[in-house]
């Protein structure tokens, strides 16, 4: 199984990305079943790898039979397989949600089997790109898959038509600048070491004496990936992109896309480049920028009246929190960062599926539109409530535990940065309390305005169509389960990470 699953994990999404549009073009029928089956298979492969890495240790896989540094290697340890499971799992929900028709912008073209197939293909491509980033052990290969995921994401963002095309174009400019900065940095590393393999790089970097060049390389890579990870103040592309993306894709993009870039930052800065002086400084700066992002994101989320835009700003806050963890780099902090990636992905996915669906069906996005939804759709709203509580960090949801780890790491780290991070995380919880409870209060305890009730087509019955309601409820369950049962997962993710960094530290002279 260990010989087959790595190849399948990276190959299946790409095969699917071509197969699903092909089926749609050939037969002009819905491709829902095929796409769901593919996503399920990918998820199964990711789970299998996760289990295998947990039981029998990390897997090194030489694609094409060429070992590194000549060929491209894949690397599956607890860390990468955890993210892979997260990406593949969220993709299953997103694929299910893609059956949902209306786009938020009414100018979007109507849905046909061919268009549906193309969008499903784009989602598979996005998954393939993200899984490629997660799996690879080669810095250039990472760039290639970064671009696959980016192009697929631009497609999904722009599929809403109208405003979403402008958002997609701006995202494209930011994403391409990010990719080019990263690639430039890789060029510096290549010039200095002659290799692209991460292990080889980590082994050869300590003997490199060109400090300035190395610093430039580290900064370019960090800035490039930070743009993709929406690290404050490089987050400019994020709000419009999340808001104007059609709901099924928004649920997925908002949930995992920036996090995979944060994972890449963790891999490169926390592991491969950790031995360099510049890497340490950049990580320290990242903590401070993370603190600024946590606060700014929270404050601006409070200022929003539209629910999806509020969610987008809260994502910037959450990414700041994750990058605080990445920047601190201790075992506790990494656990917190990973845990927060998972917790935030589940909660944000749930909320975007729900809020997007409500936006489309209620024909508006303001908090007031949520008034009275609690009595119309109690189960859906209960699920969204769980997600909101997880964002605030109320136990026993997953968000509580990730915040706990990050707070604990901040206290342990101490110093001005640790104290600032501690205060910022507490403050962000308070801000999240303000902006989420506002929505929940409207949904549960306020009656809709009379005019609204009269114009509302469906006064009773489910608010969300099943393709969205099922992911929303499923994710809410997962949020609680993840919170309570995450200790076993964390137990084998961290040892891999610690031995990995220790190995690299030991190889340094």
């Amino acid at each position, binding site marked *: 199984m260990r010989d087959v699953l790595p190849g399948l994990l990276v190959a299946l999404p790409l095969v699917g990305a071509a197969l699903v549009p092909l089926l749609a073009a050939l037969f002009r029928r819905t491709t829902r079943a095929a796409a769901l089956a593919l996503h399920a298979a990918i998820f199964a492969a990711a789970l299998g790898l996760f289990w295998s890495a947990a039981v029998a240790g990390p897997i090194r896989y030489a*694609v094409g039979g060429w070992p590194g540094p000549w060929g491209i290697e894949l690397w599956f340890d607890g860390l990468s397989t955890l993210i892979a499971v997260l990406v593949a799992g969220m993709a299953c929900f997103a694929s299910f949600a893609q059956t949902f028709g209306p786009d938020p912008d009414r100018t979007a073209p109507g849905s046909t089997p061919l268009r549906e197939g193309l969008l499903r293909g*784009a989602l598979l491509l996005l998954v393939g790109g993200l899984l490629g980033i997660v799996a690879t052990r080669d810095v250039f*290969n990472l760039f*290639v898959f970064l671009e696959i995921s980016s192009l697929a994401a631009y497609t999904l963002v722009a599929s809403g038509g109208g405003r979403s095309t402008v958002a997609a174009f701006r995202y494209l400019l930011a994403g391409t600048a990010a990719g080019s900065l990263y690639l430039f940095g890789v060029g510096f590393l290549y010039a200095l070491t002659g290799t692209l393999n991460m292990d080889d790089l980590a082994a050869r970097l300590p003997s490199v004496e060109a400090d300035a060049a190395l610093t430039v390389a580290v900064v370019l890579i960090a800035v490039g990936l930070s743009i993709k990870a929406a690290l404050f103040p490089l987050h400019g592309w994020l709000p419009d992109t999340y808001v104007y993306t059609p709901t099924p894709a928004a649920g997925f993009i908002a949930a995992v896309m920036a996090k995979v870039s944060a994972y890449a930052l963790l891999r490169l800065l926390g592991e491969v480049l950790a031995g360099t002086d510049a890497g340490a400084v950049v990580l320290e700066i990242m903590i401070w920028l993370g603190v600024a992002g946590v606060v700014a994101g929270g404050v601006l989320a409070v200022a929003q009246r539209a629910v999806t835009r509020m969610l987008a700003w809260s994502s910037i806050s959450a990414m700041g929190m994750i990058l605080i963890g990445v920047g601190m780099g201790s075992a506790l902090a990494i656990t917190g960062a990973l845990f927060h990636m998972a917790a935030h992905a589940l909660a944000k996915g749930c909320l975007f599926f729900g809020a997007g669906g409500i936006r489309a069906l209620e024909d508006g996005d303001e908090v007031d539109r949520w008034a009275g939804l609690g009595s119309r759709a109690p189960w859906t709203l209960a699920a969204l409530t769980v997600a909101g509580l997880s964002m605030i960090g109320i136990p026993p949801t997953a968000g509580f535990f990730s915040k706990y780890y990050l707070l604990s790491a901040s206290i342990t780290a101490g110093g001005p940065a640790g104290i600032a991070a501690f205060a910022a995380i507490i403050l962000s919880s308070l801000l999240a309390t303000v902006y989420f409870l506002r929505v929940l209060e409207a949904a549960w305890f306020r009656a809709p305005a009379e005019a609204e009730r009269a114009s509302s087509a469906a006064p009773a019955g489910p608010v969300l169509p099943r393709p969205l309601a099922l992911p929303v409820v499923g994710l809410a369950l997962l949020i609680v389960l993840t919170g309570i049962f995450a200790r076993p997962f964390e137990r084998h993710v961290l040892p891999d990470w610690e031995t990995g960094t220790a190995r690299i530290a030991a190889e340094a002279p």
Partner: protein
Amino acid sequence: MGAPRHGGTRMRWLLGAAAFPALFLGLVLGMAELPEFGDPGSPASTHVSPRFIEDAAAETGAANMVTAVLADYRGYDTLGETAVIFAAGLGCLVILAAAGGRPNPPAPGMSHPFGSVILDTATRILVPVVLLFAVYVLIHGHISPGGGFQGGVLFGSGLIMMRLVWGPAHEGGTHRPDVTAFGPSLRGSLILACAGILGYAGIGLAAMAFGGEFLNYGTLPLGSDPAHVRELATLGIEAAVFLTVAGTVGVLFDTISIGMRESGVPLGSDRGPRE
């Protein structure tokens, strides 16, 4: 949309005036420490690459080392690269063309009058040469500059030439009998592009079926000499890349021209010979 960013124009220039010289300076300072341009002793020249130069022919059967690295040593990158192209085609289809979703009209063949005699004649002479040359570039990629990408782009440009002269195959999803076309329809192009990706990944998965890693062509049962087997498989994946690139070039051209016609934006200097 969020807060307007108008007032920021001057601010942006000021920031730029500070930031971009700093970026330039930083880059140059870093570059000053890189190995000398053309230094044969640089890490890049001595660490990994010598194997590609010294052993590529023996290991992969390709005289063109770039092709050896591209299609074999780093064949996974190239699969990703093909997927990137495909993604662009998919994107343009989603953004510009798949609105109607109606079946494309069958290409009516070369039975209609063309734009002008000169264009028509030149195209009739040029297109077969271009297409043939594309195939040559594909097949010869092993021993001279070339390969699937280059061949695919050439093939696609041959198709574009026909589209330019003889009109699009497809207009906003409706069949217009007065517009003629030749070459694959938009849907055909999409099918070509999909087939290419499937072919590429299929070869990789076939290698797994015979017990190797993904894309490890050496395990395919195509002969006894591993270098020769790899050479054959490389040709196969080059062909797959060729299909995807040619198909995507067609998709990009068709979708963008459809989008332009729909939007009324002039396509180049005029709207084409038929209008």
